[in-house]
């Protein structure tokens, strides 16, 4: 999870390049993606997990919050509780289903938020350049100078436990790398001949950004951001594990892993389930992101 740089050698801002799109680009991307069976499979799993999260109230067999201590820590395969029960006698299957909501939210929301804010900062400073660029990017660099886990833990530790604070800290952690990628790509695009030409012909800055910059820039940032989702999920579950993330009794996978920790001797399988869910989701996001990257031909 220390791996904000996990998908790119050293510093992403130095190596990501804008995509030069030709007509039929997206259909060829789709064709290439379809051939990558592993990525398609990962995508299907993620769709399933997403459906599970959306439909949780309809498919969960029981109330994820209702427990009976009398039936606590039942093993996997107990009648009525196919995946056993947790330390308060709550149905593990239902909690894992509902948990998808929290865990996906904690993985995806900060990345989306950081994607919007980071892209905005990066594109603006890359396009405007000059003093604005210096001020914005040096500020970003300060945050980029912290290892991601350290920054996330320090922020959450300072703000205190809770879902909102954890989301906020993760968002702040992911803005700098995305902004740096966006800035680097935008700067490259800005200096291209066709942009110079558009500017010379009197197109407004907004039009240029919309037509020439966004189209070429968002793709690489998007691929980069999908790779961050798995990092965000593991980081978020880690925060919950430390007691700095979601608070009980919410069925978030990292928190469930934490509260079931002491049961790992008596019901190892039950205690391992939330960890397995985090693992499956995060590996699916990684495989999907790999597939997208090679399909879209982003380095």
């Amino acid at each position, binding site marked *: 999870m220390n791996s904000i740089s996990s998908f790119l050698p050293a510093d992403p801002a130095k190596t990501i390049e804008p995509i030069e799109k030709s007509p039929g680009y997206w259909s060829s991307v789709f064709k290439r993606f379809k051939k990558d069976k592993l990525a398609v499979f990962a995508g299907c799993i993620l769709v399933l997990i997403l459906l599970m999260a959306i439909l949780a109230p309809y498919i969960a067999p029981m109330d994820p919050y209702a427990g009976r*201590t*009398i039936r606590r820590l039942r093993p996997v395969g107990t009648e009525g509780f196919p995946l056993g029960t947790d330390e*308060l006698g709550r149905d593990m299957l239902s909690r894992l289903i509902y948990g998808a909501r929290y865990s996906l939210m904690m993985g995806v929301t900060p990345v989306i938020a950081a994607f919007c804010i980071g892209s905005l900062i990066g594109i603006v400073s890359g396009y405007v350049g000059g003093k604005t660029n210096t001020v914005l990017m040096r500020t970003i660099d300060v945050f980029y100078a912290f290892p991601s886990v350290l920054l996330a833990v320090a922020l959450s530790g300072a703000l205190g*436990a809770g879902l909102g604070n954890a989301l906020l800290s993760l968002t702040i952690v992911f803005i700098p790398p995305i902004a740096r990628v966006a800035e680097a790509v935008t700067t490259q695009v800005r200096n291209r001949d066709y942009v110079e030409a558009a500017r010379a012909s009197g197109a407004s800055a907004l039009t240029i950004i919309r037509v020439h910059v966004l189209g070429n820039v968002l793709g690489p940032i998007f691929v980069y951001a999908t790779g961050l989702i798995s990092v965000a999920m593991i980081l978020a579950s880690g925060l919950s594990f430390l*007691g700095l993330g979601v*608070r009980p009794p919410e069925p978030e996978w990292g928190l469930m892993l934490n*509260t079931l*920790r*002491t049961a790992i*001797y008596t019901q190892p399988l039950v205690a391992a389930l939330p960890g397995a869910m985090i693992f499956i989701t995060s590996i699916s996001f990684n495989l999907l992101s790999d597939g997208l990257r090679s399909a879209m031909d982003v380095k």
Partner: protein
Amino acid sequence: MGLGAGSLLDLSGVSLSPAFAQGASTLRIAMTASDIPIPNGQTDQGAEGMRFVGYTIFDSLVLWDLTKTDTAGGLVPGLATSWRVDPADQRRWLFTLRDGVTFHDGSAFDAAAVVWNFDKILKADAPQFDQRQAAQGRTRVPSVRSYRVIDPKTVEFVTAAPNALFPYEMSWIVMSSPAQWEKVGRSWDAFVRSPSGTGPWKVERYVPRERLDLVKNDAYWNPARRPKTDRLALIPMPEATARTAALLSGQVDWIEAPASDTLPQLRSRGMQITSNVYPHNWTWHFSRIEGSPWNDIRVRKAANLAVDRAGMVELLGGMMVPARGLVPTTSPWFGKPNFEVKTDLAAARALMREAGFSVQNPLAVKAIISPSGSGQMQPLVMNELIQQNLGEVGIKVDFEVMDWNTLLASWRAGARDPSSRGAHSTNSSYFSQDPFTALIRHVDGNLHPPTGTNWGFYADPALDALFAKIRSSFDDAEQLSAIQAAHAKIVDDALFLFVAHDVAPRALSPRVRGFAQAQNWYQDLSPVFIA
């Protein structure tokens, strides 16, 4: 205030002597604290600090009887052989000191040393005054007004008002060696690197955050309490799962507070599980300010009758005693209350109906809880169970989750303070080893915040009168009957949601022998040996 030069390689703890002499027996204990309690004397880390560092390296004038396992032991002579109150002036106490006691550094313990140690925590302009020890010790002796040497074997203490509970206060204050403090250069930072007390254990090596190695004191003044083990190693290990793994892998011989879910595994691997009830209290402390729903005695009683304590016992793997009052029923202070604290849902629903509430039309209450904390047992699961139970009789509980330190700060500030966020109860577990901490400080009408810790702003003249009687009864029997009457009244008025007493589970390797767990926060490690 450094522990030495800040070089990467200056990592020495206390001494560089090899800690692991061959053939010597070592008892290795994993504590729940995240750091070694500071071996300066008036140590930190709460009761666990006093248990493993306070009363091992040091002694107080008055000690606890740690030999009884079937009832709560009382106070016994420590560095003082006897104490008495002056019949002519009940504010004046005389403590007679033990003869022939020496500190680990060889210097003699006498009346001057006692006065020096009280100056250490109470006299801000004394050279040996230590802010750190003062913060720990000062609130333990609120009655003390003055003290002086009468002769080398006698010390006089004067209290603010007659206070029969004064010896309990004295049990808190332990004696560090003045001579050692002088010898190491009149510095507490230097003192902790080679501490010296009068206790049954001497410090051999201190590695902050990692390990404290103690060796037995063969010259301990009480021959009965000379340690049977050569060495004692204390290791901080805040993670319950890590402690279990450490015991199972043979890294330690003794762990404090194993998680209840690991007990079956520990038992199956031949570990001994010891436990015993002790003066610990896990309650919901009700707010009694205007508008609190707990002002209605029917609601208070209904809640007490709704809690499924038997279910909670199962939840905690048997590691709790259902509470029937503020003190366990084995305590001499329990008395004879009329209200029986038990589970009776029908009676609880009837009371709630009478008060105008039902499951369909529930009463909403807001409760402060913490996710963890010293003595809090397993607060989240326990509170979730209570939330379920109360829901079944028509009390809808909404939690305000605070981390342990924030909860303590709001507990000090009181129910009216914004930091308590308008909650109707708080959930802080209590040390309740003496009548003041067990009963008085929570409900005494004169101890409203910020003066005291009567968080709920409760006041009842009848109860206050009983408290005054406890403080002014120098006759033991008379004092006991006042304590019993006060406790019975607290139970009958259901002033708290009585839930549980911890039983301080410990898991010991099969090789550990000789340990008898006393009904006390502190334990005697001297008779323990490794087979």
